[in-house]
C-alpha cells in the first residue's frame, strides 16, 4: 500500500540547538540535532524537515556547517528551511547534503526565487513553506518572517501562484496551532489540497495518531509534527518517538 509520509519537523536556533515552540513563540530547548537525527535513523522515519527559525530574524545566512553535520548522519530525505533568500545559498545547502529546500520569507518580495530554484534543482526539490495565521477577524492570512508579518494575498491564490512558479510541494503550517498538540487545521488543509495538484504537507497541531489520520483524510499527502515526536506526557518531557510500522499503516486506512 502506498502510505502518506509522516515527517518530524525539527527547529533549531543560531547555536544549532534543537528547540520547540508554541505558536511560533517560547522556544524550549529539546536537545542536540545530530543526536536526534541518529535516533530518527534508527526509527526509519520517512523524511525530516529541519528549520532554522532564527536565521531570517537575525538577517543571517544558513549555518552551512551545522547543516552539513546533520546531513552526514541522515539516511532519510532531508528538507532544510531558514534564511534562504538567494540561489547561491540554496546551492550551498544542497551541496551540504540536503535534498530539498523550503522557502518561506523570501516569497514576500521574490516569489520568482521558486522558479529559479526549480530550474536548477528541479521542482521536486523545491518546497514552498506557507505559514498561515488567523487575524483578529478570524480571517486566514499568509504570514512570513516567523509570523511577524502578514501578506495581503489570499491563501488559495498564494498557494496556486507558488505551484505555477514551480514549487513541487507545499508545507502548510498553522501558526496558531504550532506546538498546541490539539489537532490540525483541517479546513485549511482541505481547501489548499483541493486547489493545487502538487503534494501538500500538513503541519501545525499534531498531538496524536488520530490527528495525523484526520489530516491525511482531509487531503494532505504528508503530515508533519514537532511536539508529538519530541515530547512525552503532559509535562512535556523530552523523548524522541515515531509511530511504529503498524501505526503508520493504521493512520493510512481510510
Amino acid at each position, binding site marked *: 500500500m*502506498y*502510505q*502518506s*509520509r509522516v515527517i518530524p519537523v525539527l527547529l533549531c536556533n543560531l547555536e544549532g540547538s534543537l528547540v520547540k515552540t508554541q505558536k511560533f513563540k517560547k522556544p524550549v530547548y529539546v536537545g542536540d540535532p545530530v543526536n536526534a537525527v541518529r535516533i530518527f*535513523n534508527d526509527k*526509519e522515519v*520517512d*523524511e525530516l524537515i529541519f528549520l532554522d527559525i532564527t536565521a531570517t530574524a537575525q538577517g543571517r545566512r544558513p549555518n552551512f556547517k551545522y547543516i552539513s553535520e546533520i*546531513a*552526514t548522519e*541522515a*539516511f*532519510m*530525505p*532531508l528538507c532544510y528551511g531558514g534564511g534562504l533568500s538567494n540561489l547561491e545559498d540554496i546551492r550551498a545547502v*544542497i*551541496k*551540504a*547534503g*540536503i*535534498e530539498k529546500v523550503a522557502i518561506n520569507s523570501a516569497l514576500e518580495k521574490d516569489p520568482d526565487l521558486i522558479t529559479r530554484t526549480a530550474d*536548477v*534543482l*528541479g*521542482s*521536486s*526539490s523545491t518546497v514552498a513553506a506557507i505559514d498561515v495565521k488567523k487575524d483578529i477577524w478570524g480571517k486566514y492570512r499568509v504570514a512570513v518572517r516567523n509570523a511577524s508579518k502578514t501578506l495581503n494575498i489570499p491563501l488559495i491564490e498564494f498557494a496556486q501562484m507558488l505551484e505555477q512558479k514551480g514549487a*513541487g*510541494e507545499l508545507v502548510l503550517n498553522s501558526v496558531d496551532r504550532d506546538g498546541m498538540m490539539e489537532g490540525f487545521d483541517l479546513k485549511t488543509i482541505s481547501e489548499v*489540497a*483541493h486547489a493545487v*495538484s*502538487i*503534494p501538500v504537507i500538513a503541519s501545525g497541531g499534531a498531538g496524536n495518531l488520530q490527528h495525523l489520520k484526520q489530516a491525511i483524510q482531509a*487531503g494532505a*499527502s*504528508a503530515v508533519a509534527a514537532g511536539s508529538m515526536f519530541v515530547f512525552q506526557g503532559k509535562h512535556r518531557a523530552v523523548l524522541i518517538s515515531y509511530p511504529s510500522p503498524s501505526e503508520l499503516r493504521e493512520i493510512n486506512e481510510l
Partner: protein
Amino acid sequence: MIAIVDYDMGNIGSVSNMLKKIGRKSEITRDPAKIRDADHIILPGVGSFDSGMEQLEKLNLVELIREKALKDKTPILGICLGAQLMLERSEEGQKAGLGLVAGDVQRFKLDGDPKWRIPNMGWNQIRQVKQSPLVDVLPENPRFYFVHSYHFHLKNEADQLLLSDYGYTFCSAFEHENIAGVQFHPEKSHKYGMSLLHNFSEPR
C-alpha cells in the same frame, strides 16, 4: 574504487555518505581519468533530462561513460535522473540519452487525479521480477524513497528488475548485464538502500 560522477545535478554528497557508512571507498569526481580507473560507477542526479545530458556533454563524459558501461562492462548504477539518462530518450526533453539500455522515459499519465499527485514523493514497495545480486538479498519488507514525475519504460521486458505501483504499475529498476538503474534513492532509504548499495559495490 567507486566513482560517483559529479556533474552538478543535485545532492550527491548523500551517496558518498552512505557508502562511507557501509565501509566502501568512493570518490565524487568529474575527472575522466578517475572515472576511467573506477571499478564501479554511480551516476546519481536530480533535475531535468536535457540539463543532465548537457552537463555530461559539457564535461566530456558521454563517450567515456558509454565506453566504460558497454565495452569495459564496468558495473554502473544510475540513480533517479542518472538512471533515466541511461535510456535512449525522455518525454521530458529533446536530447538523446546515453542509450546504455533500450528504452525511454515517460511522464506519469495521472494528471489531474488528486489521489496520485505528481511528483510522486514518498516511500514505496517494490516487486522483484527477475533474479539479480543487486536485490536478491535485501532486508525484510524493503521500501524505498521515490521523488519523480517520469518513469522508465523498457523496450525489452527482460531488462525490468523491479516494479512498483503509483496509480498504475511502472518499472522502478532495470538491469541489463552490468548496467542497472533505480528510480528511487537508495542513499535516502535507510537500511534498504544501504543493503542495495552494499550489493552493488561488492567486488565482482
